[in-house]
């Protein structure tokens, strides 16, 4: 009987350890997403919309997963430095200038990027602050 209890406890312990290990990245992801959401509301939502739907042909929607995936390595630079070139999103051309957000820190850019690429029907997983930091140093 006692042995059984010890076994059961041990077994549960092992499961708990496994779950917590698996969840470290999920926890980071959730943290980034929740901070990123606040930054999105403050800095991006007025143009890109509450649901990332964009605004006419003034601001592109953020729901084009293909565009986001293809430009994955540029997203951090676009967020921080803005964009001044025509882009094609979901088959439509957008020519308006996107403003720069130099006030955002590297970690904030990372949180924002993780939020956007995992919201509005996108599901591209986690990007760490270190990766974003090194991307930002290579902005053109």
């Amino acid at each position, binding site marked *: 009987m006692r042995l059984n209890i010890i076994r059961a406890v041990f077994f549960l312990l092992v499961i708990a350890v496994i779950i917590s290990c698996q969840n470290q990245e999920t926890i980071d992801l959730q943290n980034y997403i929740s901070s990123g959401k606040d930054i999105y509301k403050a800095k991006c939502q*007025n*143009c890109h919309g509450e649901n990332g739907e964009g*605004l*006419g*042909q*003034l601001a592109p929607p953020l729901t084009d997963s293909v565009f986001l995936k293809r430009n994955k390595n540029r997203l951090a630079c676009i967020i921080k430095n803005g964009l001044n070139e025509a882009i094609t999103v979901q088959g439509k051309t957008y020519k308006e*200038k996107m*403003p720069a957000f130099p006030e955002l820190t590297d970690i904030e850019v990372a949180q924002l990027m993780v939020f956007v690429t995992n919201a509005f029907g996108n599901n591209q997983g986690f990007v760490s602050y270190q990766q974003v930091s090194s991307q930002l140093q290579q902005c053109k």
Partner: protein
Amino acid sequence: MNKIVFSVASCLLFTSLIFSCTQNKKLPYYGERHAETVRDAAGVEKIDTVYQTIPNWSFLNQDSVVTTNKATDGKVYVADFFFTSCTTICPTMHRNLMDIYTAFKGNPDVLFVSHTIDFKYDKPSALKKYAQKLGVDGPKWLFLYGSKDSVYTLAEKSYLVAVGEDSTAKDGYIHQGYLVLIDKDKHIRGAYDGTKPEEVEKLKQDIPLLLAEYKK
């Protein structure tokens, strides 16, 4: 028996009172007002209240056509102040206003008037591009360009919306995001913060109320 008749009668009276109240609901008047002595049709002198009135104006619209206050004659309209390169409150204001525009697109008695406060860059061609990209076509929503003086004075003195140049602001200008509701007699009947969905919703409900005041 008498009691029943009495209670039914008082009930009816009460409901009719409630109904008459809701039907007579009038939007408030904003701004300065003063009393003036006027003569009515019969020539009898009486004292009347004169409400703040939007003065005459003349600007260029998004098609570079001279447009005056005559365009608003016989219409209830919503006015606001913005500029095309604004990245802060304007996109939200116009996203919300777009919703109202769509709702009243088919009503010939409703008009939309947006004044740019960027007298340097927002020439009619820039306004036209902006309107098209926002998804607005046609004369139902006017985008107006005018000199700094005329637009800023109109904003602050007549529509009671604060506007200004500010070199410390991100986009170079600061302004309030009010959507101002004007009646057919050019009086201010409402001001709604265009960045707040609940206030924009109220504007959407107030426009039919205002239109109803003219139905006799």
